[in-house]
C-alpha cells in the first residue's frame, strides 16, 4: 500500500514537473499577468489613472521577473560595450524607471480586456523563448503582446516586451545611438535622468 502510494505520488510529481518543464516561461507569464490583472480589476484608483499606485503594483509583482540589465544592453546596442560598469549600472537604473512607468501607465488604461495565452515558441533545450499572449477587446482585433524570456539561475526572466510587433526595447535603439554619438554614454545617462525627473508621477 505504501509502495503504491509513493508510486502514485512519484508519478504525480514527475508529471507535474514534466508539464512545468514543457512550458515554464509560459506558466511564469500567465501567473504574473493574472496576479496583476486580478488586482487592477478591483482597484478603481488604478483604473482612474493613479499612476503612483500602478507603479507600486508593478514594483511588487512584475519587477522580480524582468532582467533590466539585459534590456538596457539591448536598447543601447553596440555602444553598451563602451560603458564602464558604473555607467552600465546607472543606465540600467534609469532605463528601469522609464520602463516601469511606461508599463504602469499602460495598466491604468485597462478596461475590460481579457488575455489569451498562446503556445510558447521554444525548443525543449532552449534557454530562451518567446511567450505569446493576446489582448482581446470587444469590437477590435486582438493585440499581440509577446515576451522574450531567458533562463537564468533565478528562473525565467523577461528581457523584451513586444506589443503589436513593436519591441519596447529596440524601439529606443536609434534614439540612444544618436545620443551616444553626440554626447557619449554620460550624455545618454543624463538624457534618461532628465526624462525621468520630468515625468515624475504627481508632477504633471
Amino acid at each position, binding site marked *: 500500500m505504501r509502495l503504491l502510494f509513493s508510486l502514485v505520488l512519484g508519478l504525480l510529481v514527475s508529471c507535474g514537473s514534466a508539464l512545468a518543464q514543457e512550458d515554464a516561461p509560459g506558466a511564469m507569464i500567465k501567473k504574473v499577468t493574472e496576479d496583476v490583472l486580478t488586482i487592477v480589476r478591483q482597484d478603481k484608483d488604478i483604473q482612474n489613472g493613479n499612476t503612483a499606485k500602478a507603479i507600486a503594483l508593478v514594483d511588487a509583482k512584475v519587477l522580480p521577473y524582468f532582467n533590466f540589465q539585459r534590456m538596457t544592453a*539591448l536598447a543601447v546596442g553596440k555602444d553598451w560595450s563602451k560603458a564602464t560598469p558604473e555607467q552600465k549600472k546607472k543606465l540600467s537604473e534609469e532605463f528601469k524607471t*522609464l520602463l516601469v*512607468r*511606461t508599463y504602469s*501607465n*499602460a495598466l*491604468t*488604461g485597462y478596461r475590460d480586456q481579457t488575455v489569451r495565452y498562446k503556445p510558447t*515558441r521554444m525548443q525543449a533545450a532552449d534557454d*530562451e*523563448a*518567446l511567450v505569446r499572449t493576446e489582448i482581446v477587446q*470587444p*469590437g*477590435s*482585433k*486582438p493585440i*499581440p503582446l*509577446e515576451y*522574450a524570456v*531567458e533562463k537564468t539561475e533565478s528562473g525565467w526572466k523577461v*528581457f*523584451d516586451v*513586444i506589443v*503589436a*510587433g*513593436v*519591441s*519596447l526595447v*529596440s*524601439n*529606443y535603439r*536609434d*534614439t540612444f545611438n*544618436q*545620443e551616444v554619438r553626440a554626447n557619449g554614454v554620460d550624455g545618454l545617462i543624463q*538624457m534618461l535622468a532628465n*526624462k525621468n525627473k520630468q*515625468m515624475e508621477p504627481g508632477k504633471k
Partner: protein
Amino acid sequence: MKIQLAKRVCTVAFAAVVMGGLAGCATTANNPKDPYEGFNRAMFTVNEGLDVVIKPIAQGYDAAAPLPVKAGIGNFFGNIWDVLTAVNNLLQGKGQQGMSDIGRVLINSTIGIGGVFDIASEMGLEKHTEDFGQTLGVWGVGDGPYFYWPLIGPRTTRDTFGWMVDSAMDPVWYVSDVPLRNSLVGVRFIDLRASLLPTDKIVEQAAFDKYNYIRDAYLQNRQSEIRDGKGDDCKLSRCY
C-alpha cells in the same frame, strides 16, 4: 459618382506629384528609411497643431458617449472596414480568412443590426484588419521612404499608395447624400482619434522624441502586420 471618382484620381495624381517633387528636397536625415525627415517633421508639427483642436473634441466624445454607444459606433465602422479586409485577405491568397471576413460582414450587417453589434466575434469569427498597403507588402513591394502626412499620419511610400486605393474603395465615400457622408467621415475620424487617447499618454511617457518614437514603432508594427505576426524568430536574442 463619376465626378467623385475623377476627383479621387486627381487627388492620387496630385499626391504622386508631391512625392515626386520631394525627391529633390535637401534633407538632414539620420535614418536611411526616413530620407525626408525635414519635411516629415514639418508635417508632424502641423498635425500636432491640428490636434490642439481635434484632441479636445475626441476627449469630449470619449467622456460624453456611454461605453455601449462608443462600442456600437466602433463596430459600425469596423463592419464597413471588414469589407476591405475581406477583399485584401482574398488578394493576399488567404482564402479562409477572407471567407471568414465575408461571413462577419453578412452576420453583423443583418443580425448585428447594420454592424452596430459584433455578433460574429461572439460566434467565433475573429476580427482581422487588413489594408491594401499590407497586400502590396505581401506581394513583395518594399516600404520605400517613410512619410508623415497631415491628418492621416505615418505611412511608408507603399502604404501611402495602399491608403489611396483603400480610400478609393471605401464605401463611406460612396454615400451619395453629401451631408450624411461628411458626418460619417467626421464621426469615424473622431472615433479613431478617441481610440488613440490611451496611447497618447503612453507615448508621452515613453518617448524622448515623439516623432522618432512614432516612426520607429510604426515601421516595426507594419513589418509585423505584413507577416501577420508569423515567422519572426528575430524577437529572440540570436537576432538582436
